[in-house]
């Protein structure tokens, strides 16, 4: 909308703010987010190390999606701040938000390749069409998530796991360094979950920092470097051993979770707030 779009892309490769060396990829300080009079998140402070995988757990309405949207710069916190590589998120296009599947109109007339290409739009600039480099980046992203064979398929014909891998490919095409995945495994069958886990492991090689919200306690306790337990505020943040403690879990979930102490730590029976990990929102 200003003169910047007339500048040639090669002269202006980074439309986004650069990161400060040494600053954490994500640093949140005393953040509060409210919708009108309803405070959804309050006193949120934490920071992430580059390349780590963090599970975000908490009951329905705990503010997991809101946390992701505030980090992505889509929701504005009413107090506190979010820092991405030392800067305000508003200038960054290196944060990808992978939406819950229910937020997307799957009847939209686009193919998998079209959706992944959208990840490039932030870097193409105004009045420009996809270059050969953009196409190459899309092909590479599709290949990494194992979706090359499905590239020209309409999105309504994808399975749940394929839909999520498509969005991860889009985040890769966006060259995202921080990926926020909202319920990425919800409603996926076991083989689809395996495929998504394989993709997440590949992202480790690329040093992509990942936050995944989930209702699956088994998932949260087995595959992530750290776990963030959330219910309006941060109840616990640390290793699985630090967070999966009966007192903390009860504080977050109240009676919606059955927790049994067992010989080797804690046994969580179920997060009863939603049927089998499918959030009814």
């Amino acid at each position: 909308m200003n003169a910047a779009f007339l500048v040639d892309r090669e002269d202006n490769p980074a439309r986004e703010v650069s990161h400060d060396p040494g600053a954490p990829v994500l640093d949140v300080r005393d953040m509060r987010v409210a919708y009108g009079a309803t405070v959804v998140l309050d006193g949120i402070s934490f920071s992430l190390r580059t390349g780590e995988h963090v599970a975000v757990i908490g009951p329905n309405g705990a503010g997991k999606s809101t946390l992701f949207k505030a980090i992505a710069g889509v929701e504005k916190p009413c107090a506190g701040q979010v820092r991405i590589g030392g800067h305000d998120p508003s200038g960054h296009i290196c944060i990808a938000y992978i939406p819950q599947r229910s937020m997307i109109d799957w009847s939209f007339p686009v193919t998998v390749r079209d959706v992944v290409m959208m990840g490039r739009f932030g870097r193409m600039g105004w009045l420009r069409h996809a270059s050969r480099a953009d196409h190459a980046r899309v092909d590479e992203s599709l290949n990494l998530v194992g979706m090359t064979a499905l590239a020209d398929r309409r999105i309504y014909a994808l399975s749940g796991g394929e839909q999520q891998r498509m969005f991860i490919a889009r985040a890769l095409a966006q060259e995202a360094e921080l990926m926020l995945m909202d319920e990425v495994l919800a409603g996926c069958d076991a083989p689809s979950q395996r495929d998504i886990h394989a993709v997440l492991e590949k992202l480790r090689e690329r040093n992509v920092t990942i936050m995944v919200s989930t209702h699956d306690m088994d998932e949260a306790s087995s595959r992530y470097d750290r776990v963030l337990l959330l219910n309006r505020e941060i109840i616990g943040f640390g290793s699985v051993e630090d967070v999966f403690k009966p007192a903390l879990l009860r504080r977050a979930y109240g009676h919606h979770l059955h927790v049994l102490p067992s010989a080797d730590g804690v046994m969580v029976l179920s997060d009863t707030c939603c049927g089998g990990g499918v959030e009814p929102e």
Partner: protein
Amino acid sequence: MMQNLWAYIVEPLQYAFMVRGILASVLVGVVCGLVGVFVVLRGMAFFGDALAHSVLPGVAVGYWVGHGARGPLFWWALATAVMVALGIGGISKGGRLKEDTAIGIIFAGMFALGIAIISMGRSYSVDLVHFLFGDVLGVSWNDLALTASFSFVVMLVLFLFYKEFLVVSFDETLARTLRLPHRVLYYVLLVLMAVTIVVAMQTVGVALMLAMLVTPPATAYLWARRLPSMMILSALIGALSGVLGLYVSYYAGMASGAAIVLVCTALFGISFLFTRMKPNAKTLGTEK
């Protein structure tokens, strides 16, 4: 037989008003078909209908002020449509009422105001019919030039900002994380709708406008796989409906706006039956 058909085709073309009418309906069909794709995909059909009806008081005041002159009506309609589009767009985001309720109140109120103003004039029923149902055979060369230039501007904006409109329509959150000005894009789309409605007003009238915005894109959706092909097909269907509709109107002595819309609807019906026979039948807007 072929000669007969040819005679049927050229006969109406001896009248300059028919030629102008056909040119106008082709332009309107194309521009409505293109903008309508976004109306359909974003679920803004009700908004489009409301916007079309809300133009009426502006036109009526213009008619009143100009003592019945047709020339300035385009500009009165344009100013009203843009104002209402931006007004409803602002109100419906984050208001105290649900979006469709807010639109409904403004829509009905504006429409009543338009009818009230027109009803105080002398040739009430004739004028009202023209505004409501269009008067494509009354299109002047001047009207045609205006229609053509504004259609061109709408098409140019759609073409230049195609990828931004695509991403903001498919996934607004992505548009926001890519730091695209999603609010500006939304309002530009509303203004494009407003201009399209004004351009189409003389051809189909406000009452049947919705059909031109919704039916050709919905028909195209049934056949197309991707957005670009849906847009091209929708524009072609809109243009074809305009031409066929005018011929039907000429030979059957039928109101032109109604004839155009009926052809549109027939094309949709045929497409619906044909595409239902294909495997992988899909539905629009229900798989959310």
